């Protein structure tokens, strides 16, 4: 088994050695009310199914005492990359990175992917999109009228992302409308490729650089100074991973729509004209909150909408519970993803809002499905839709 050892740097091996199995990676701390916060642990209550447990596995894999296996794969692919473990662990940082290292180790040892993940990979390589089906035209959602709004000297390049292009297209439509209403010159492109996040989740590396180069070049050539995203996974990957994949900084500013519109609030340029009587509960997407530390921006924008009542989850902000839509979980373990979304919908319904709002296409899609399957009657919308309706 020794030739199959997982390679860990001395520093990582030492860091892992420090885990005292306190369980905060799975249950959080006092602030989180000590409720389960880890999607992996929600699926199964063994210590193994915690970031701490997986750290132990990395440790013994490094020591040559654990072989790469399908059972390890099935454990690792329960991780949605939500980073709740990292936010709550006082000892170790970078658990999600270590999980990705283990996935890479499985790949190098020829452990096959789950069927759903193999399809995602095939689709990506074939279509530059993780989905199958009608994926030839990324801009199918764009109406002829909207097309006229595309600027040849844009301030903003809207990187639509795969989920907003093909699944939650109302988000893309809403953002295009918002930009029009705010007189922001923007452009976009049908030649956009997936941001590359799935490669990361699948423990792949060499593809990332080419994909990042393509997307950065596309935006750079548009002349825009800001790349704008409705998908927080895309914006996180651009901000956090692209500089290291490319070996250089981004030649433009990457902004999620929530922080972009928040800057309009500060400048007094965001004027809502339509009153609403909705009570809204805001779900912090993991990759926007813990991933980019953006918690206040969406709340500040939504609170400007006249008549809107904001409600909060008991588990919110840094302790927000993952909807189950991340890390390719729906492709690998759709039932678990459903259960997590159902769990989050129950948490929302306890606060009796009329609407659950998030700012991520993955969250929106998964929460809708989860609520339906859990038989929770709650409407789910994206931040962009609500803003567009109220402007």
């Amino acid at each position, binding site marked *: 088994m020794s030739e199959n050892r997982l390679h860990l740097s001395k520093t990582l091996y030492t860091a892992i050695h420090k885990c005292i199995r306190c369980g905060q990676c799975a249950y959080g701390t006092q602030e989180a009310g000590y409720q389960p916060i880890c999607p992996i642990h929600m699926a199964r209550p*063994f210590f193994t199914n915690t970031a701490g447990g*997986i750290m132990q596995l990395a440790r013994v894999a490094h020591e040559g005492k654990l072989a790469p296996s399908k059972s390890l794969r099935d454990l690792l692919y329960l991780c949605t990359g939500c980073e709740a473990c990292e936010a709550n662990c006082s000892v170790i940082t970078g658990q999600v990175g270590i999980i990705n290292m283990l996935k890479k180790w499985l790949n190098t040892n020829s452990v096959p992917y789950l069927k759903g993940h193999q399809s995602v990979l095939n689709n990506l390589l074939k279509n530059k999109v993780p989905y199958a089906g009608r994926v030839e035209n990324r801009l199918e959602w764009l109406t002829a009228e909207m097309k006229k709004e595309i600027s040849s000297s844009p301030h903003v390049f809207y990187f639509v992302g795969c989920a907003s292009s093909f699944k939650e297209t109302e988000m893309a439509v809403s953002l295009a409308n918002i930009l029009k209403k705010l007189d922001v010159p923007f452009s976009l492109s049908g030649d956009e490729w997936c941001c590359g996040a799935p490669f990361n989740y699948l423990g792949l590396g060499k593809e990332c650089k080419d994909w990042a180069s393509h997307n950065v070049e596309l935006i750079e050539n548009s002349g825009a100074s800001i790349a704008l995203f409705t998908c927080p996974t895309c914006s996180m990957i651009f901000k956090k991973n692209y500089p290291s994949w490319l070996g250089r900084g981004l030649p433009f500013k990457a902004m999620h729509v929530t922080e972009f519109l928040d800057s309009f609030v500060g400048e007094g340029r965001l004027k809502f004209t339509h009153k609403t009587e909705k009570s809204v509960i805001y779900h912090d997407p993991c990759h926007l909150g813990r991933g980019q530390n953006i918690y206040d921006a969406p709340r500040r924008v939504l609170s400007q909408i006249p008549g809107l009542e904001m409600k909060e989850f008991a588990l919110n902000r840094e302790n927000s519970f993952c909807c189950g839509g991340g890390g390719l979980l729906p492709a690998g373990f759709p039932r678990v993803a459903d259960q997590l979304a159902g769990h989050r919908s129950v948490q929302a319904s306890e606060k009796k809002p009329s609407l659950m709002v998030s700012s991520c296409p993955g969250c929106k899609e998964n929460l809708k499905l989860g609520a339906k399957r859990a038989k929770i009657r709650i409407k789910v919308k994206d931040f962009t839709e609500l803003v567009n309706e109220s402007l």
Partner: protein
Amino acid sequence: METLFKALCSVLPPERVSFSDVDLAAYSADSATPPGASACPLAVALPQSPEEVLHILQIADRLRVPVTPLARGSNIAGLAVPIQGGVVIDLRLMNRIIEINEDSAYALVEPGVTFHELSRALSEKGFFCHLPTASGGSSPLANYLMRPSGNYSARWDPDPLLSLEVVTPRAGIIRTGSAAFDSRLWRARYHCFPDLTGLFACSYGTLGIVTKASVKIFKRCEEERLLLIGFESLPPALEYMERIIRGNLVESVTFWTWGWNLFHEMMLSKQSQMPQEILKPDQKSPPEGVPFGIASARLNGYKEVVEAQQEVCIKIARELGGEYLENDLAKEHFPGCYNYLHSYFVKGILPKPGEESQIRAGLHLPGCLVSAGPSQILEIEKYMWELAKREFEPPYFYRVLPYSHAREFFFAFVVYVRGDIADQLPYIRKLRGIYGSLYSELLKKLGAVMFRYRKDPGFFALTGNYGQLLRRIKQLVDPNNIMNPGMLLF
């Protein structure tokens, strides 16, 4: 193996028992396990009731397979690692706070309950519990069973346990204390017969698995305060602690030396580098502007009484050369330290991030943990400083707290190991070697007793007939020696 598999699956549903290599590997080590020394169990079981625990123990006894109980898993001393293989009984699903009895001031808990959960539930009812310097994710039941280093042990007593429910392979499910008479009575440690709760305390899962415990809880009062006094050496601090405890002025008090206090500062950040000041070669002298140590006390009572008690404490401290550190100033100059102490002493809640954040910066080696009378403590301090100067690398520091009317003091001397574990192995081995003979020496020379058992059968042998009697009891309840044999106690 096949027999064990079939037997366990006959008493537990398949989703709560595992033979998977991945699960076995995850349970094979903790932070105290040296690199490469992990030990895989044969199976992991997650029971949900004492009856299920009993079934597992009966199977293990019949097949002569060792069992290692695990309450919530949090550990820095290798107490719940299946060194001899066998079955790990992970009790995390037995996690109910069954009762908070405000009338008789106790809480009835299962082993999977954490300090976070218990403190929160008690706080809602105006109570608090003994808090150790452990992670909030650790189990009060398990911690209390190992003699807790609880900070509320000064006025009350060092032992929060009352009645227990214990599962043994041969004697079945036993209840001790008042619960022995009636399973609804959990308020007392013992009545008219010998105290069997004490038998299971500090037995580390070698005599039985505790599945319920009633633990003492304490009422919050009108006014709760943190009183901080800086001292420039241990002797006046020790006298201060003894006087304020025996004068019934505070509920609890602990003396942390400067290194420990500076580490508390780390808790506010995510930094993983030790503060530079903490690495100075002369560990006996603090950096400029930092007191050698701070005595942190909890005052709890009616406002007027607390006011008067604080005044008297400050007067005593000044007589002894101590400096009163006002809360606002402490908050400004030592925000991390203040935050930690305030949460601990006033809120009665282990703070986030807790003591474990120290481990971020260095490997924590459970060091010298002893208890001794007040006058011996000064000798122990001297002894440890000399030993440390000779053998240890910075940082090292200690903490002292009086127990039970200052009848004895708890003394904890801790060494942190910096750098990569692979490079530091020789140093770690050296430290373990020193600790190996330290306890016998401290006992012989200074009358200090090991506070928690450190897998040293030689130390147990010092107990003479007491040890012999315990061995006979062990043979009676666990003749096949299946109960946590990795502890090397019996």
